[in-house]
């Protein structure tokens, strides 16, 4: 007797204010299956997941869980029916312990009071069941790293008896080593017969982890295939409907490596030490390393957010004391920050207001001529918006990122530091940004590229500087293998 599928969504339609977002989408997930849903931004992945989680209600179509028809109008109903969703933003309460978070609202009681011992024991059992032995039930959530918080979220879902766990970009904030941890967890869930719905932009994970893939495009299901029957190239083609010839563009003709534009000598502060780094005009230098290895800390020191307390920084041969962002900007340095919503954009303001923010805030770089060039910069980045009056909060992630890049290019910097420039943006926008990075180098900028996606440093950088534990562990030429980078990043030297 074949088991009923864990989830069968059929003919799901959803529109917002008359704009169709999902059109007759089917999604069937078998017990113990890891099922990927992929598609560009705007394809409808989020909406589909939110319907499943009870956040939105479908306009048409049916949802069956284990063969039983359900309809959710509230997230709690979905939870009670055995569907747990781990969203990108974590919902843990930072001041509570792991055990308290897992049992929130369902604490074991004895004589009306919370039975803390039982709670701790259940938590320990749950975690060891998931193969996690080194996570203390009493630890406060705020002390945990991102992947560990994710584990707690998943454990919480398990303890609620979920048959289906939906993960929204679970690895977006993780470095490669931490991704391994998540892999093991997902495999463990599969072994226990729990199904996983996995939404991710990272193709490698999808091919490593998932049994089947459903591709959405423009609100419609393009195909559902067994992972074994499709290649990454074919998958990308299915997602975007066109073939992206090479993932990383070649350097533009006429790109020449020139004078040293950024030089850090013996740089250090509380987090990093002994940083010697040179970036030349026309050069793209990649900074690689695991989460916490000091990648972002170098960017913050160069830009004066957490300045170097030791060593010197020279820009275009001139030694500069960079004690804050204003000094960095005056020296011709730009920083595209890691978190565009929290650090990069004033979301209620228009595209135009954001794009001119750096010019407006700094008398030393402000000029009419530069203001006049902003429109041209925005269109050269292929920004899709309803005009410069549109508020940036209504743009897609990729277009928001283009606005951040534009506001820095407006100031015509000599050195640009890009911290995770492609995080959480769709394939098309990523490709555009790669091309932009190449053209910046061709224009003679010094580019310092920080990314946790190894493939990006390898594909784009002329040189790769690998960090480990706040220090430079080694340097590799562009095109090095992932194994070589990982060897340095994990503190070994490459064979």
């Amino acid at each position, binding site marked *: 007797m074949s088991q009923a599928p864990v989830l069968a969504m059929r003919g799901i339609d959803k529109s917002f*204010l008359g*704009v169709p977002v999902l059109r007759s989408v089917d999604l069937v997930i078998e017990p113990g299956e890891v099922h990927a849903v992929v598609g560009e931004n705007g*394809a409808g992945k989020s*909406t589909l997941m939110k319907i499943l989680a009870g956040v939105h209600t479908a306009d048409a179509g049916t949802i069956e869980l284990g063969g039983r028809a359900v309809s959710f109008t509230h997230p709690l109903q979905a939870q009670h029916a055995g569907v747990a969703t781990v969203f990108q933003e974590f919902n843990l309460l930072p001041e509570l312990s792991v055990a308290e978070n897992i049992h929130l609202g369902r604490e074991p009681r004895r004589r009306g009071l919370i039975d803390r011992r039982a709670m701790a024991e259940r938590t320990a059992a749950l975690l060891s069941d998931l193969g996690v032995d080194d996570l203390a039930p009493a630890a406060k959530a705020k002390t945990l790293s991102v992947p560990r918080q994710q584990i707690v979220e998943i454990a919480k879902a398990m303890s609620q008896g979920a048959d289906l766990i939906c993960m929204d970009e679970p690895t977006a904030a993780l470095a490669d080593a931490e991704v391994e941890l998540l892999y093991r967890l997902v495999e463990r869930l599969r072994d226990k017969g729990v199904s996983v719905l996995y939404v991710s932009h990272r193709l490698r994970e999808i091919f490593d982890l998932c049994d089947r893939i459903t591709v959405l495009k423009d609100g419609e299901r393009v195909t559902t295939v067994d992972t074994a029957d499709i290649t990454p190239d074919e998958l990308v083609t299915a997602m975007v409907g066109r073939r992206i010839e090479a993932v990383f563009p070649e350097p533009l003709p006429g790109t020449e490596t020139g004078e040293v534009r950024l030089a850090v000598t013996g740089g250090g502060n509380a987090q990093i030490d002994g940083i010697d780094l040179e970036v030349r005009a026309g050069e793209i230098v990649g900074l690689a390393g695991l989460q916490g290895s000091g990648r972002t800390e170098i960017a913050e020191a160069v830009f004066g957010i957490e300045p170097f307390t030791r060593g010197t920084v020279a820009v275009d041969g001139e030694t500069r004391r960079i004690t804050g962002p204003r000094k960095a900007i005056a020296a011709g340095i730009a920083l595209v920050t890691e978190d565009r919503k929290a650090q990069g954009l004033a979301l209620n303001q228009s595209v135009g207001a954001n794009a001119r*923010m*750096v010019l407006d805030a700094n008398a030393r770089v402000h000029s009419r001529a530069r203001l006049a060039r902003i429109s041209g910069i925005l269109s050269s980045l292929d920004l899709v918006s309803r005009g410069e009056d549109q508020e940036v909060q209504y743009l897609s992630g990729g277009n928001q990122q283009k606005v951040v890049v534009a506001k820095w290019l407006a100031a015509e910097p000599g050195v640009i530091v890009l911290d995770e420039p492609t995080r959480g943006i769709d394939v098309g926008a990523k490709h555009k940004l790669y091309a932009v990075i190449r053209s910046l180098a061709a224009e003679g900028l010094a580019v310092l590229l920080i990314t946790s996606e190894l493939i990006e440093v390898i594909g784009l950088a002329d040189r790769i500087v690998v960090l480990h534990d706040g220090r430079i562990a080694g340097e590799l030429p562009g095109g090095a293998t992932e194994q070589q980078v990982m060897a340095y990043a994990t503190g070994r030297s490459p064979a």
Partner: protein
Amino acid sequence: MGRIRTAAAALAGGGTGTVFALLAAIFIAVAFTNPGFFEGPSLMAFLKQAAPLVILAAGQYFVIVSGNFDLSVGALVGAQVVIAARLIDGEESRTLPVMGVMLLFGLAVGLVNGLVTTALKVQSFITTLGMMLVLTGAIRLWTGGAPTGSLSEAFRGPGRRGIDDVPLIGQIPWAVLIMIGVGAAAIWLMRTRFGRVLVASGDNELAAELSGGRVDTVRTVAFVLSGLSATVAGVLIGGYAGVSAQVGQGMEFTVITAVVLGGVVLGGGRGAVVAAMAGALTIEALFALFNQMALPSTIRPAAQGLIIIAAVAYAAKRRTRRPVAATATTNANPS
């Protein structure tokens, strides 16, 4: 068709359009109850009375849009009038020097509010609540409970008199001209780089800072502008209504109500200064309507309370609705 819909959305959107629609509606109601209201002299009298609140609203706007509050303005208006009366004490020749002292005092109060809020990281709600109590208490202590002295004729000029014998209108009050001047300056200021950094600081402090914006400085300047606006308002109110211990009382709430009614979002980053000033006019128009309907003036606090709650609730409702529309068209979430 599309244009009509856009216009309707602007009027109902809770932003700048809405307050002008509301103002027009109240003016129409006023015209029905008192057809003579829009004749020159009575309209000028209305604007003269409204001018101090409009000026205060401009000052308060700077503070609110940058993400703070200024609760000390009512007490500052009162303190300024009492200081003026005591220092001038009826001597015409002291008028200008005392006005200079008042400007310095307003500037100093704003500077203290700004520095305590930005450098000492005290929430502005607390900073300015404290300043309000300090000002009220210090003035009582200084005067021994009741205001002493009197204002000079020259001091009372801006609040009382104007350009006489203008055809059709009669008198154009100085207060109205000052209001127009302050309004124009405020609108201009918001179009400068200072204004843009100010709004960005209220919207996303960190992004403004990392773009090189001097967040603490512009926020402090906003408090100073609010202190100066309270000084100007104090001169007009003192001139118009004279000295008493009650001058300025409760004005901080009236002005915050006015700014919120103008669609300026508490917490910062959203709304236009012209709408904040229109919000002040709307409140004054509403009070004028109450007068014409012979409602007691004691109804005003309750009306203000309802307005501020309704305005914020309306704005909140509009804001929770919009992101859904955004997911529909652009899918803002990176997933």
